[in-house]
């Protein structure tokens, strides 16, 4: 566990430098117009890429089964997010649906 602090320092520093990278570079390097236009898709692309596997995979296999409660509750949450655009409602209703389905099925 002696290497623990070394690993923490290294990962912490690398993560920080990753986050700092383009913010600092901006003064010397302007990204081409195509890149700038593509940036507006960063949030939707990355966020969707993170949550889709969370609701669609069961033990690393795609599951469209009704027994995949995360998918069912996830679809409900997507509908709530689309209708209300409220993070609070999305998380609250999604979690409520998940617990209700767990209890029912």
């Amino acid at each position, binding site marked *: 566990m002696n*290497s*623990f602090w*070394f*690993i*923490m*320092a*290294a*990962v*912490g520093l*690398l*993560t*920080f430098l*990753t*986050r*700092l*990278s*383009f*913010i*600092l570079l*901006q003064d010397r390097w302007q990204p081409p117009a*195509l*890149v700038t*236009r*593509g*940036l*507006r*898709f*960063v*949030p*939707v*692309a*990355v*966020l*969707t*890429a*993170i*949550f*889709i*596997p*969370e*609701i*669609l*995979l069961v033990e690393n296999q795609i599951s469209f089964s009704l027994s995949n409660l*995360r998918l069912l509750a*996830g679809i409900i*949450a*997507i509908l709530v*997010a*689309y209708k209300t*655009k409220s*993070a*609070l409602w*999305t*998380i*609250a209703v*999604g*979690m409520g649906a*998940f*617990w209700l389905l*767990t209890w029912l099925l």
Partner: protein
Amino acid sequence: MGVRGELPILLGVTPFGMIYGVLALSAGLTPLQSQLMSSIVFAGSSQFMLVQLINLGTPALIMIATGFVINLRHALYSLSVAPYLQHLSPLWKVLLSYLLTDEAYAVGIMRLQHPEEGEYKHWYLLGAGIALWSCWQLSTAAGIFLGAQVPPGWGLDFTLALTFIALAVPAINDTPALLAALVAGITSILTRDLPYKLNLIAAAVAGITIGLWSDKE
């Protein structure tokens, strides 16, 4: 203002921070180590991965490489917010970079991209970042404190998926954005067996490409 924008998200982040705290202890970390990882690394997904790797006794270099690559997507966030922070002092840039997590970025960028002119929009990003940082530290501490009393059967880790749904879906405001999301989601699934969560990078590139392609007037 940024704090208020971030508040609903904290509802989803808190259980996740607590679960991290519990897992870190069960992987054999001391409470201090578990807590400081949340301050030093401050990136949920890589913290979860690191805790698992510690459990497996993974060599240090592999762990560092893994943590680094998992967080590579933050370079996209950096590129994305950079134009709005150009006028700021180096200290501001350093501070906002440290706070640039998935959730703070997702909330902050919506405001930054808002067409209204504003010299002070970066305060919004700062507020969102500080709110998330405080929440992450406190929920980690709560997880460490409660330990095994957090019941695994509650499926609390599902709140992470819900958080990202809450952030992603309202950001889909036209057809190119919808296509970008769909393609990113599908790519992320198809490439899920890539190491180091590189599927997220593959998905981002595929999603952005299709978004650009469908966006030309």
